[in-house]
């Protein structure tokens, strides 16, 4: 459709403008600014698609006068004249006609195809503003051509698969948001690593504990060595003690023996020295006695304290038992609680057994299978049984309902039939049908009645008429009679003449008479016989009609049920019709009701058949119920439950049995727990009592273990106090002992001095010293004694063959010191024993810790978890790699697809763009599935639209629009293109290129090119296109009011 002429009556600045344009090719229109070029473009738009509303706002003068104009168009071989106008009231007018006929606005719009106002404005009719609008290329209508929104199934699949794969990849790793499964796994791994680092202290703990154990073991070994040494020493001391007395006696005796030989050397001042020494010794002895007393007191006190010290041997045991006190108390509390629970559970069990009914015992309850399998069996059986029951009940209900319904229906039917007095419904139906037929015939009968009545009346009338007017006139009858008589006379005369005159004359007479008679008979016969026949016939007809009328009336009376009488017979036709309609209605109603009843009867019969089938099914269901019941009862019996057909009761029994069984289990468990706790406590009690017996402690005597242990705790506390006191006293004792030793040494020194003195006086004691003189006899006795002592010493030496005692030891041996030393060793041994026990305990604890650490699995657990996590990481990383690879593959495929399936529009646009940009930009394309445009430079670089300069952008959009116009033209949408100064941003070279491109384009399409630039118009002029000059060059031809 091309424009051939633009006629503006009034639009914008234009009045009565007549602008002829080239029907094909390019029309260049030049005019300065405000010459009205854009107005012409808007006018063209307005003629094609209507003037916009806001047009009324332009110019009050024009608004008052109204706008309008005409476009002459050429559509193929057809010429159209399109006229539009908006009058001063704003009323729109449209007129379009061809040479042959007029077109409505809708028909004209249909000729424009799919190009609506927006599309026309964005593609065909462009100013610089429209050209720059990218959004106009984003509308669905246009983008379909540019971006190929319909990618096809393959394209959509590729695009969605790529998107899905990318999405999956981002779910695994989204570096921007730092989310995804791989991040989670990395975080979990770090957390596990921290936890593992914490758990790896096991080795150091193990080493420390091992060191502790070694230390304790060494300590114990040292203590044991020390104990062994002390015991050996004590044994030696004890042996020495046994040996020392005889040996001492031996020495004394020997010394006494020596006295006798040495008395000669008795010192001169021995007595005085002896006295001095005696005094000194006395003082020292008093002091020693005092100290010894103190020592004894202390020793006594220590001994007293030792009475309580008997706890020492069992302290560790008691402590261990006391350590278990909490456990014992817990066990006792638990025992009490469990005993109470057991009692309660037993009572509850008894109650539940009672609840289960008579004859239920624990043994019977134990026989009940309450396993989940049994429950499942029970539920299944109950379900089956209940299903059978419900099926039967449902079916029975359905059967009963059907039966009741059928019964009711039958009763109603019988009542209805009785009410209607019908014995046989078929007959009644037949009768009703017959009656309806009769009633349908009633009208005919009425007609027949009327017809017959009419015929009777007609016949009667005719008969009457015949009776009145059909007889011969009297003269005719007289003539005929005369003729008959004359004929008779002539016959007689003929006979006479024949006889008398001749036969011929007689014959003539006779024939004449016969002729006269015959004529008279014939005429009479002729007239009178017809009347008779007619009369007879009419009478017969009347009779026949009367008979038929009677028959019809009988039928009518039978049908209507109203005996015929004259009154009814003369009822008006209207009444009769009403009555007849009423009767037909009644008969129809009756027939309908009877048919309804017949259907009801049929339904009843069908229902009976159905009921018969249902009875069969009911028997089957009943059988299923019996089988189900049997199975149910068997199962109940098998499970040990009371047989009952009520599942609810059975389940109640089951539930009670389960509850009771649970209670039984709990009770049994509680009972066993009580037994275990009792055994545990009894064992513990036995241990404590053993210890108590060994320690002579007060036995429990009915007290609880915890009380006893509490008492022991007190005793142990007392023991601790006493031990502290004992240790303190032992310290005092040791100090005193040192003082005592000093005193003893002083005393020994003094004694030694005394002994030396006495030795010098050949005496051992002062008295001896004094009596030495007279004791020679004593020597003999002493020798005997010495022999005995020697024997004793020999015997003692045999007892300890391994022990070698040198005399020096015996000389330095002090019995008292030795005894004290033995006591001290005993005490030290006791201490060492205690220390050894402590060491053993510590060693045991350390070994327990070692065992615990050896079975510590926390680190291994964490390592295993970490390895599982690494497995997940491997899987996830593999998935990520897989999705990445798949995504890249899809990208490659979509790129190939994109290259292969670029929209045709863009291919054409690339051609135009190449021309418009003088080959700088070779291709315009759109990425797969998006609405973006990318331009490829000749150098291979790509640019987005936003990266292009204004001029290049406009050239790109112009190229796309030219391509779109081509595409639409191929779809048979051919419209002129109106361009209004679109090259203002083009440089000189590209303007020339644009002129060439437009000229090429205009060879195929009509283009109206408006410009205000003279050089541009001249460019076209130089190429053979004579512009239309507005208004300066064309003012003689054109009239305008403004501009």
């Amino acid at each position, binding site marked *: 459709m091309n424009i051939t002429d633009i006629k503006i009556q009034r639009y914008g600045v234009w009045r009565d403008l007549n602008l002829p344009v080239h029907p094909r090719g390019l029309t260049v229109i030049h005019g300065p600014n405000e010459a009205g070029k854009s107005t012409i473009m808007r006018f063209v738009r307005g003629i094609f698609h209507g003037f916009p509303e806001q047009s009324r706002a332009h110019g009050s003068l024009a608004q008052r006068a109204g706008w309008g104009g005409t476009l002459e168009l050429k559509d193929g071989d057809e010429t159209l004249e399109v006229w539009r106008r908006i009058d001063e009231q704003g009323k729109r007018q449209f007129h379009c006609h061809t040479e042959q006929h007029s077109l409505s606005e809708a028909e004209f719009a249909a000729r424009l195809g799919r190009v609506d106002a927006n599309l026309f404005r964005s593609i065909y009719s462009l100013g610089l503003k429209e050209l720059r609008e990218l959004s106009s290329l984003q509308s669905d209508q246009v983008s379909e051509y540019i971006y190929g929104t319909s990618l096809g*199934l*393959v*394209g*959509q*699949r*590729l695009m*969605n*698969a*790529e998107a*899905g*794969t990318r999405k*999956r990849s981002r779910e695994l*790793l989204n*570096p921007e948001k730092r989310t995804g499964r*791989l*991040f989670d*796994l*990395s*975080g979990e791994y*770090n957390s596990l*690593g921290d936890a593992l680092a914490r758990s790896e202290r*096991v*080795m150091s703990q193990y*080493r420390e504990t*091992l060191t502790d154990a070694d230390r304790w073991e060494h300590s114990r070994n040292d203590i044991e060595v020390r104990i062994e040494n002390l015991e050996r020493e004590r044994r030696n001391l004890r042996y020495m003690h046994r040996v020392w007395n005889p040996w001492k006696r031996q020495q004394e005796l020997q010394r006494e023996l020596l006295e006798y030989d040495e008395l000669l050397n008795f010192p001169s001042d021995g007595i005085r020295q002896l006295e001095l020494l005696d005094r000194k010794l006395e003082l020292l002895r008093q002091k020693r006695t005092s100290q010894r007393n103190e020592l004894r007191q202390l020793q006594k006190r220590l001994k007293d304290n030792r009475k309580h010290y008997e706890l020492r041997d069992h302290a560790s045991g008691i402590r261990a038992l006391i350590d278990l006190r909490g456990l014992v108390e817990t066990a006792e509390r638990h025992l009490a609680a469990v005993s109470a629970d057991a009692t309660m559970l037993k009572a509850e069990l008894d109650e539940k057994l009672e609840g289960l009914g008579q004859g239920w015992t624990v043994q019977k309850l134990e026989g009940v299978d309450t396993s989940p399998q049994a429950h499942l069996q029970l539920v299944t059986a109950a379900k089956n049984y209940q299903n059978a029951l419900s099926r039967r009940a449902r079916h029975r209900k359905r059967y009963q309902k059907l039966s009741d319904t059928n019964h009711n229906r039958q009763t109603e039917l019988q009542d209805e039939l009785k009410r209607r007095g019908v014995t046989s419904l078929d007959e009644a139906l037949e009768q009703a049908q017959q009656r309806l037929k009769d009633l349908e015939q009633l009208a005919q009968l009425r007609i027949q009645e009327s017809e017959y009545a009419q015929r009777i009346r007609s016949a009667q009338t005719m008969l009457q008429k015949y009776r009145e007017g059909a007889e011969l006139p009297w003269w005719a009858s007289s003539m005929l009679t005369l003729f008959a008589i004359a004929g008779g006379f002539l016959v007689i005369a003929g006979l006479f003449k024949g006889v008398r005159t001749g036969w011929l004359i007689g014959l003539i007479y006779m024939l004449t008479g016969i002729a006269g008679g015959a004529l008279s008979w014939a005429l009479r016969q002729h007239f009178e016989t017809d009347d008779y026949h007619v009369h007879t016939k009419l009478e017969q007809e009347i009779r026949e009609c009367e008979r038929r009328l009677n028959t019809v009336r009988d039928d009518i009376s039978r049908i209507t049920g109203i005996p015929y009488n004259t009154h009814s017979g003369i009822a008006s036709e209207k009444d009769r019709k009403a009555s007849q309609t009423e009767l037909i209605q009644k008969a129809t109603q009756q027939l309908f009701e009877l048919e309804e009843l017949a259907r009801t009867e049929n339904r009843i019969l069908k229902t009976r058949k159905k009921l018969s089938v249902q009875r069969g099914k009911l028997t089957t269901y009943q059988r299923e119920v019996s089988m189900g019941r049997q199975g149910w009862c068997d199962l109940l019996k098998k499970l040990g439950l009371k047989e009952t057909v009520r599942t609810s009761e059975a389940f109640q029994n089951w539930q009670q049995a389960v509850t009771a069984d649970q209670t039984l289990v709990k009770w049994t468990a509680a009972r066993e727990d009580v037994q275990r706790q009792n055994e545990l406590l009894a064992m513990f009690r036995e241990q404590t009592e053993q210890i108590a017996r060994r320690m002579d402690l007060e036995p429990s005597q009915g007290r609880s273990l915890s009380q006893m242990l509490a008492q022991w705790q007190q005793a142990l506390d007392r023991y601790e106090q006493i031990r502290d006191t004992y240790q303190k006293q032992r310290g005092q004792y040791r100090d005193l002992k040192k003082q005592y030793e000093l005193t003893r040494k002083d005393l020994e020194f003094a004694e030694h001095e005394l002994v030396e003195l006495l030795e010098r006086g050949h005496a051992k004691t002062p008295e001896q010293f004094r009596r030495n003189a007279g004791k020679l006899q004593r020597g003999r006795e002493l020798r005997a004694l010495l022999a005995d002592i020697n024997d004793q010493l020999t015997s003692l030496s045999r007892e300890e063959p391994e022990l070698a005692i040198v005399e020096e030891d015996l000389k330095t041996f002090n019995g008292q010191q030795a005894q004290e030393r033995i006591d001290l060793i005993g005490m030290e041994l006791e201490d060492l024993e205690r220390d050894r026990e402590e060491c053993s305990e510590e060693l045991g604890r350390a070994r327990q810790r070692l065992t615990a*650490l*050896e*079975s*510590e*699995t926390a*680190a*291994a*657990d964490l*390592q*295993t*978890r*970490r*390895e*599982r996590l*690494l*497995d*997940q*990481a*491997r899987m996830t*990383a*593999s*998935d*990520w*790699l*897989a999705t990445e*690879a*798949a995504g*890249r*593959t*899809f990208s*490659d*495929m979509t790129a*190939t697809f994109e290259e*292969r*399936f670029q929209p045709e529009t863009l291919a054409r646009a690339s051609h135009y763009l190449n021309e418009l940009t003088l080959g700088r930009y070779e291709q315009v394309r759109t990425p797969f599935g998006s609405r973006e445009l990318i331009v490829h430079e000749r150098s291979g670089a790509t640019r987005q639209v936003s990266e292009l300069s204004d001029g290049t952008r406009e050239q790109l959009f112009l190229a796309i629009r030219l391509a779109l116009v081509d595409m639409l033209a191929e779809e048979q949408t051919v419209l002129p293109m109106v361009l209004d100064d679109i090259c203002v941003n083009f440089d000189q070279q590209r303007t020339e290129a644009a002129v060439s491109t437009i000229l090429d384009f205009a060879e195929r399409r009509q283009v109206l090119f408006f410009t205000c630039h003279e050089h541009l118009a001249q460019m076209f002029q130089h190429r053979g296109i004579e512009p239309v000059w507005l208004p300066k060059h064309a003012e003689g031809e054109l009239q305008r009011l403004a501009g």
Partner: protein
Amino acid sequence: MHSRSRHVLFTGNLLLDKPLQGLYSARADQHDLIRDATLSAFENLVAFAVDQPVEAVVFNGRMFVAPPTVRGAALFRDGVETLLEAGVSVYWAGPQEREWQTLSDIRCLPHGLQRIDENHSRRSVINRSEQWERSVVCEWLDMPRDHDHHTNGAHNNGHVHGQTRIGLTRQAIGHLTQGAALHPERDRRFDLIVSGAADRSHTTRSDKTIYHAPGCLQPSDGLAEGPGQVTMLRIDVNGELELLREETSVVRREQRDLLVEPGGTRNNLLELAELELQELAEQLAEGSTQLLQLEWIVRGPVADIKDWSSEELAAELTSLLETTEQGLPVNHHVQLVPLMSGQPIESDEFVNEQLEEQFLQHLGGQLNGETSDDQADRLTLQLGADGIDWRAVFAALPPRETGHRSGEWGVRALQQYKRA
């Protein structure tokens, strides 16, 4: 049965405490079993040695992968003590000094355990006696060059009558072509050379020498198939050697290939899998396996398996074949491998029906030009260097499996849209 024979057990890597890898479908209730798998394998070894009985046990492999843990060390100590108490001589060939020292420090090195190493390079594991006129000598082969020259020379006398010589090494012997692993001149002296290097059992023979790697007691590598085992050497009085294997692993990984015929259904596949599992279960009936990890590689024409997924198949197999008939738990892991039909496809012709095949074709080209190093670098950069060693993770990923996974993913992605 072999009254005139003696037995010596040789182990490869024990790897006590090393957690098992690659059990992708392990369940939570199998945690303890998996955690203790290597320890259980060692216990199986001890129990076997005591039951047989054997004369000696020679550990020739890595005992731990990391510094010994208390638990592993204690179990090792208990096991060795059990063996010693049962009269079995126990030798540890080539222990790492640090390991040995740690075990010694924490008293987990029983006194009867003897080293075979540079300092004790020759041990007579079975001595000659009146009843047994043959000695069995183990020698450490991985000696320093100068040490080997001076010390080994003393014993470098070739075969000795009435003596079986066994060489112990940590070097791999799996590839005869790799000359570095074999020294034919040296090895000729030995009747048997046992290597503790390989994780898998391997035996080969060169001239008169048998080369044998017992393999791991419990393979911990997620990709290692088959059982972990210990090798029992039976030595006849005449010096005849026989290598017998005893399974010790408790967790076993097996890989099975299933091929979906064109037009095959999922039911066909499940039936095939069931048959495979039955066959495998019969093989495992007498072994020590307590958990079976089955890796199914399901190959099939893409047209037939494009609606399947590995996860669904694994779930289906797990629901159908959770245990073997003998009650052995089975974990299933499935990898679908969509195969191309082989029909020629134009790479730039996009046909809806052939889109999956086109994808696989493109993917093949894509994968051929891929390296995972860049991916690992990128991942390490994005996820941070501390934590998981992504380089190691990527290095452990078999490229082929990743390719299969990609194929399955892509086909599934295409199918998802088609279904939608």
